[in-house]
């Protein structure tokens, strides 16, 4: 007898629909899985047999062949278990084929017959299209995000088979979890003093500029960076769905509402491997941190401590907003449009005011060179952060709160979208003269900087984008109509481009 059951697997952050064909034919007992199963899928035989035994279902006594369609793709993941079990039972004549028409099955089987949660239910359900899906009861909410048909749940194989045999109705879906109050503990008002760094953060949020904090340990770089997502607007619907798929595929817990709506914040440790940061771990090419940060903020603390080759992998996602993982037999492209925030010390000893650092010029230069020039170039803002003074720390007045800064950021972002359709950070070089005009005093200042050799051609364009954002924020702050960029804006943008690897101890550099 033959049967055919729908299921799906996930590669990268995308689901792929799979059909399980089963034939139980006469012949010597045997069990074969064809259609390029990988290790996990091949092991399904033993999980299935255990589950059948625990559920008092007969294991086929003759030659059984499973074919996973399309046969050319490598199959991976334990999500195929449930469909295989149902397919075998139909082919062996224990379940009516009509009962599974229009149904797809996703779930891993335990030896006790229980149906277990798998990673990536949301993208798998999305790939299945307009069918009803059966998922583990823990995955109900995740499946519902992407489902076009009904979402059915089952806790274990006997329960599912009872439904399929018409002995009982589908179990009720689990009650939605209590909605948690969104309580973000990271508020900007905890940051005392640090006016330059706070302003840098605000500019980064308003213009979408990548940001590098440079300062000694204990200056508050990490604290500042963690407060950037709070300044960003909620994700658009498209972004939200993409981010949710990625989170589901990576097995990250989803927020109470199901969809990821707030900008994610990811802060991988500096020992992160290439696969962890860029993606592509395991045969199903797990999404990396660049994709998990999609629509939000990727924060790299101790930037110079990251493996340089791992960091260079960031160049493609920074350029294109997507990351392609290509392996010999499988490839995936995942969204990875994130805002990069990084922090580093100015030198190995941590730095501080000139005259306090004991590092030699060579050490400083080697340290700065660990971050490649092309990557360093992507940071529109390189903001120096000094340790806060004692009076700033002890002074009880809190800094400005996230809510009021976020309101300004929202208005400044709206200004730039209205003017040019994009955020300032991605404004094309040719459109700068149209949308980011500078006045005469600002031109003189730029001329001085370029002729003194402190500003390169590419740096010039980046500087003008940042100055545009500063001008936008200035008009939001003073409630005046947006004007052209003035010298103050350019000067501040220059102050937020501190050079790296310079020396405090000689002519060496």
């Amino acid at each position, binding site marked *: 007898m033959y049967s055919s059951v729908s299921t799906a697997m996930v590669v990268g952050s995308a689901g792929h629909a799979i059909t399980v064909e089963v034939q139980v034919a006469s012949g010597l007992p045997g069990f074969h899985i064809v259609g390029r199963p990988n290790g996990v899928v091949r092991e399904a035989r033993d999980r299935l047999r255990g589950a059948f035994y625990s559920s008092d279902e007969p294991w086929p006594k003759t030659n059984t062949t499973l074919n996973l369609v399309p046969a050319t793709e490598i199959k991976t993941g334990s999500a195929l278990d449930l469909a295989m079990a149902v397919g075998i039972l139909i082919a062996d004549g224990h379940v009516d084929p009509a009962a599974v028409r229009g149904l797809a099955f996703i779930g891993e089987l335990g030896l006790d017959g229980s149906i277990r949660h798998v990673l990536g239910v949301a993208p798998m359900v999305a790939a299945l299209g307009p069918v009803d899906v059966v998922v583990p009861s823990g995955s109900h909410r995740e499946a519902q995000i992407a489902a076009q048909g009904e979402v059915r749940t089952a806790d274990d194989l006997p329960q599912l088979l009872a439904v399929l045999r018409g002995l009982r109705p589908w179990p009720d879906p689990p009650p939605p979890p209590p909605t948690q109050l969104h309580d973000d503990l990271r508020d900007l008002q905890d940051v005392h003093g640090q006016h330059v760094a706070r302003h840098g953060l605000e500019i980064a949020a308003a213009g979408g500029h990548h940001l590098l904090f440079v300062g000694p340990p204990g200056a508050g770089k990490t604290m500042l960076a963690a407060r950037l997502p709070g300044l960003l607007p909620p994700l658009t619907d498209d972004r939200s769905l993409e981010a949710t798929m990625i989170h589901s595929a990576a097995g990250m817990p989803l927020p109470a509402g199901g969809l990821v709506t707030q900008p994610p914040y990811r802060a991988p440790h500096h020992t992160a491997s290439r696969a962890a940061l860029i993606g592509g771990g395991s045969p199903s090419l797990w999404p990396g941190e660049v994709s998990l940060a999609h629509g939000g903020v990727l924060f790299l603390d101790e930037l110079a401590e990251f493996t340089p080759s791992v960091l260079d992998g960031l160049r493609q996602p920074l350029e294109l907003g997507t990351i392609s993982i290509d392996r010999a037999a499988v490839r995936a492209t995942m969204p990875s449009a994130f805002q990069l925030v990084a922090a580093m010390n100015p030198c190995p000893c941590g730095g501080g005011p*000139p*005259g306090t650092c004991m590092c030699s*010029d060579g050490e400083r230069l080697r340290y700065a060179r660990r971050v490649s020039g092309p990557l360093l170039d992507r940071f529109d803002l390189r903001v120096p952060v000094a340790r806060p003074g004692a009076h700033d720390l002890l002074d009880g007045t809190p800094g400005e709160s996230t809510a009021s800064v976020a309101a300004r950021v929202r208005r400044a972002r709206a200004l730039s979208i209205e003017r040019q359709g994009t955020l300032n950070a991605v404004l094309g070089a040719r459109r700068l003269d149209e949308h980011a005009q500078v006045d005469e005093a600002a031109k003189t200042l730029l001329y001085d900087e370029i002729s003194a*050799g402190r500003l390169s051609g590419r740096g010039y364009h980046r500087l003008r984008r940042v100055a545009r954002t500063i001008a936008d924020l200035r008009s939001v702050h003073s409630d005046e109509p947006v004007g052209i960029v003035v010298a103050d804006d350019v*000067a501040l943008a*220059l102050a937020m481009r501190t050079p790296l690897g310079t020396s405090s101890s*000689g*002519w*060496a550099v």
Partner: protein
Amino acid sequence: MSGFVAALAGFDRMTVARLRALLDHFDPETAYAVAAGNCVADGPVGELLGRHADLAAAWRSSAAVRDPQRCAEQCRHLGVEVVAATDEAYPMVLRSDPWHPAALFVRGDLAGLQRRRVAIVGTRNASQRGREHAARFAVELTEEAVTIVSGLARGIDAAAHRGALAVAGAQPVAIVGNGLDRPYPRVNSALWAEVAERGAVVSEWPPGTPPDAFRFPLRNRIIAALAEVVIVVESRDRGGSLITAREAAQRDVAVFAVPGGIDQPASEGTNALLRDGAAPATETLDILLALGLDGRRAANRRYDPRPQLHGRAQRIADRCAQGPCTLEMIAEEVDRPLGETALLVARLERDGWVRETAGWFETLVGWDSTPT
């Protein structure tokens, strides 16, 4: 003859005292023969070799690799002159020193030592202001025909040499702690070459000697012995320049220290010197008076081409002169928004009044010879 001295100086376990003992008692050729074990010695050298049997062995093996002719050839090739203490060319001022080196290796011309001599030394990790002060003293003293003696290290030493070279006719003298075949530190190669061309670079070690840490304190005693006045511009609490100051004090050479803020790590050593009785060096006139030169006319000649400061710009420059400032400290001082402050600072930076290092702004005194 010079080949024997050059070969001897590079022997394994050769020290300043041992080389002196050899060359004081024998002519170079005999001294070489004694050290190589080809000739039996009496007197202090004989005692020395008798006391340390392993020393004789070490020297014998050194002699096998250090051929006098080859050493002489190497020095000639590098343009290095070997000056033994008995030679005419050996600086008079050094010969009278109890710890004078038995031989000097010289690239360039020691004529500068005929003039008045001031040593300018200090920390390698100097602040911008420290380097500027070193350069200013060097320029103004050189203009008064004083020769600057220093050690060609990074930081203060390099700034002093650069300052001296900025004046036409300068003949600065650099005393270094390694062989003259390879400039150290490498970043100062160009400076090293220029000092050798216009003045002299001097070492008591033969070419090929690595820059071992122990050689620098020894080098400092030569600087102290050559100088009539030692100026310590910046030094940490245990800096090598304090060794120079101590050596100078032992030789009754006047020690000046440039006062610094009591909270500046780069001035800990100089402030300690002032506490211990060194004279404060606040302007070049102090030094000229100590040398018995009337420098008042020269001091008035100073010309600063930078535009004069007024109002807020003046306040910013004054604030940064008290110590490095961040942009927000400056904004607080003038009580203006960040953007406006940044513009004021950018203009000061353009006009050469302040300079930024990793987010910190420092005032320039106007003697900045740093290429930008």
